[in-house]
């Protein structure tokens, strides 16, 4: 083969597609393989395929070249094409992207001062190309991050080491998402987005007022290119800020929760290692509104008397000056009534005639007449009356009482 043609390269890729894919995958992300590994893959591939492959052939089609270290490096042009072919891109640091898009500012400054048509045409072509490359870069970055983030989310087993998962999420947010956001930030004067807006407004006017038709046409191309770039950027920004960032934030916080739980479970028998006290909602408590310190304070109060010897207290008998007739008197009064329709009310009323202070004990002294054998009681009514005593309120049934007929005969 004297001169390599594009067709030969395409045939090589088509015939040895599986081999190329395998080498692409195993040599990522630097696309360098040591000679032993490459030879091993060639041998394995040749065993199962009719059309053989060799190192010489790979070098002939410029698939790879040997480095001074004897390792093999895949050709950059292949890498770019294969990344597009397999939709599998490597991540560039945003700093690298930043350097790249800064050239747009430089080219644009030159364009504004250029006066020769040929120079203007070259500058416009260059700006269009740089914008294209940059858009492609941003798209690749976003795709790669989306794929990796999804995998981080789904393949929990692969990332079962929580600290690694967490580390990866934090790394992507800090090193890629945030800087990418800054590069694309709409309000920032030095962002790529601002450059595009500036070029768009400049070319929007120039495409009508330029000196010649050729120049108007060139400015119109650049104008169209910036319009397309804005749409593309908006879509990528949306993916970054609405999908990727929240997803990574969630992976980050979810991993934090899981690793916290992990420490908790691992130290379940050593609560002192939890660092943070476990939540302590109360148990069911009796509805007794007494401050619990009351108990200890009361104990303290009582304790201060403990050292004293016991004193003897004499309780003075309080002389009861009130005189009441005995039950015989009340029975006589009852019999005189020749039948009472509401016995308990009668008891209250008759007591009232002799004392102002009607207590339970006095009241029951009289109501006990109910038990006298010579009195008959009729409980037919369900009616109850409230009897208000000095030390109690009673609900008493309405009972009739009268002398037994047998007693009279």
């Amino acid at each position: 083969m004297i001169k390599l043609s594009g067709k030969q390269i395409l045939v090589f890729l088509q015939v040895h597609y599986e081999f190329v894919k395998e080498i692409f995958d195993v040599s990522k992300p630097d696309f360098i393989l040591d000679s032993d590994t490459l030879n091993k893959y060639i041998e394995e591939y040749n065993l199962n395929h009719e059309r053989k492959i060799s190192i010489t052939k790979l070098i002939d089609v410029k698939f790879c070249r040997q480095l001074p270290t004897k390792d093999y490096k895949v050709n950059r042009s292949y890498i770019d094409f294969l990344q597009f072919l397999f939709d599998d891109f490597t991540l560039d640091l945003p700093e690298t992207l930043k350097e790249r898009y800064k050239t747009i500012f430089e080219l644009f400054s030159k364009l504004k001062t250029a006066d020769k048509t040929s120079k203007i045409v070259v500058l416009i072509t260059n700006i269009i190309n740089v914008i294209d490359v940059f858009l492609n870069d941003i798209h690749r970055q976003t795709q790669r991050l989306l794929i990796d983030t999804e995998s981080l989310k789904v393949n929990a087993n692969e990332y079962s080491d929580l600290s690694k998962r967490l580390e990866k999420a934090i790394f992507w947010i800090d090193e890629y998402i945030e800087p990418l956001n800054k590069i694309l930030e709409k309000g920032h004067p030095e962002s790529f987005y601002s450059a595009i807006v500036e070029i768009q407004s400049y070319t929007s006017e120039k495409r009508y007022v330029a000196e010649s038709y050729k120049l108007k046409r060139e400015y119109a191309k650049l104008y169209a290119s910036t319009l397309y770039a804005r749409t593309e950027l908006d879509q990528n920004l949306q993916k970054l800020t609405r999908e990727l960032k929240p997803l990574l934030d969630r992976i980050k916080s979810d991993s934090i929760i899981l690793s916290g739980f992990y420490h908790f479970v691992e130290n379940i028998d050593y609560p002192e290692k939890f660092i943070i006290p476990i939540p302590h909602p109360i148990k069911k408590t009796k509805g007794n509104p007494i401050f619990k310190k009351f108990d200890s304070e009361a104990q303290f109060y009582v304790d201060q008397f403990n050292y004293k010897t016991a004193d003897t207290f004499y309780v003075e008998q309080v002389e009861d000056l009130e005189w009441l007739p005995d039950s015989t008197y009340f029975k006589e009064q009852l019999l005189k009534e020749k039948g009472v329709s509401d016995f308990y009310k009668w008891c209250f009323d008759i007591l009232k005639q002799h004392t102002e202070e009607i207590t339970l004990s006095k009241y029951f002294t009289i109501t006990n007449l109910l038990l006298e054998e010579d009195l008959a009681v009729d409980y037919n009514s369900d009616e109850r009356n409230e009897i208000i005593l000095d030390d109690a309120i009673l609900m008493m049934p309405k009972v009739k009482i009268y002398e037994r007929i047998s007693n009279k005969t």
Partner: protein
Amino acid sequence: MREYPTKHREIVSLLLDGKFMIYPNPLFGVLVENDEDYIEFFKKSYDFDLIIETDFAYLSSEDVNEKRTRDFTLFLAILSRELDYSGKNFREKIQFGTFDIQEIEELLRQSSKWEILEKTTVADFEKFIKTWRSKNLLEVNGSKFKFTKAIKLFFRFAMEIAEEKLKEQNILEKE
């Protein structure tokens, strides 16, 4: 004597029963409106701390050493782990999903961490579910259950542990 809100008795007895009060329970609104008064009321009357979060409230006491709370945290930790391992978004599932009581018991029993759970109150799973339903941490509907908003308390506990651990590790790395 000060005036208490109309639902005062319901609020006090719900919280003293050791239950979580969850938004949109109308009592939660009354509690939030009178937050300062209630915080003082529970502190002075019972020496309990009333914790009011965005959408739930509960009484807390440092003197309470509830083994059952430890068991619940353990249950949640292991359930989260198992859901994560099966590729599910565990936090979303726990916060918004519904679980089948029997299926979850089965899932836990198959876990390598069951040897820890079986020594706790989680072992009698149905009773465990009933206990935490009575505290309003779970809602049970037939054979299904779901977590209430109060579950966030336990997620935050895990986050705080992890953050403390990370701080510790960073300190170690710096040394």
